[in-house]
């Protein structure tokens, strides 16, 4: 009984050469799946994409630098303007104080006059 089973199994599992049709279909399918999974671009198509990214990065950096510089110049102009405004106030205040001194002197002298 056991010998009979072993013989039948050995016969069923013996190596069998695939048919030519099966091999052809398998190779065709493997080739098709490989093409879908990893599309291979030609080398001359990759270079423009990299160059575009480099150019975009450079342009963005330049724009950022110009923006920062413009902002710094604006800030400096604002500081100078506010300082000039403060100086005008100081000059006018000082002028009025000295005119006031003249007025007070006239008043003091006139009140002392007999």
């Amino acid at each position, binding site marked *: 009984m056991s010998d009979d089973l072993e013989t039948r199994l050995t016969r069923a599992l013996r190596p069998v050469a695939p048919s030519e049709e099966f091999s052809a279909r398998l190779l065709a399918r493997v080739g098709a799946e490989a093409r879908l999974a990893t599309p291979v671009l030609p080398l001359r198509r990759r270079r423009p994409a990299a160059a575009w990214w480099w150019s975009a990065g450079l342009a963005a950096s330049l724009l950022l630098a110009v923006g920062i510089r413009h902002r710094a110049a604006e800030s400096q102009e604002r500081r100078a303007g506010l300082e*000039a405004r403060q*100086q005008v106030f100081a000059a006018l205040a000082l*002028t009025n104080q000295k*005119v006031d001194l*003249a*007025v007070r*002197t006239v008043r003091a002298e006139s009140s002392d006059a007999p």
Partner: protein
Amino acid sequence: MSHTRRRLGLAVLFFACSVPGPVGAAADPRLALPEFKDLAGKAKESVVITMDPSLLGMASRFMDSSDPEDAAAIAVIKGLQGIYVRSFTFDRDGAYQPADVEAIRRQLADPGWKRVVETRSKKTHADVDIYLMTDGDKVRGLALIASEPRALTIVNIVGAIDLDKLRKLEGQFGVPKFDVDSSTP
């Protein structure tokens, strides 16, 4: 009599509308102010302000006309070509000599300038001289020399300064409030 002249001078200064006087065609309302390096070295406090037309323009751009204080200042500096201030405060009497301002007084001897106020205080020893340069009834410039025992101030304003508007700055940004009797006794 002297008192009357001073009052008259103040009235002329503040209302500056009827100041007659010859004006030299070449007279320049801008004084050549020295740097006063020696005085600055001895002074406890120094204020040196040099505002040319471009700086005045910049200052007015940074003033807010809706703010009363700024609006008053804009009204005063409108039409000015320059504001020049040299002010020194010392911690002792006699730190400067009258000769230090002699070069300025010589410039003010030009016929274009007219001294409209001259005050001499025996109490405080504070002397103030105010000069105007006019062209007809228009003021072209103002010069002020205030000599106090411990302070010396020189102001030169170039341009059509409106003294009424300057007066309206009283009480603003630290300017003391004062009123002037415009009537002449």
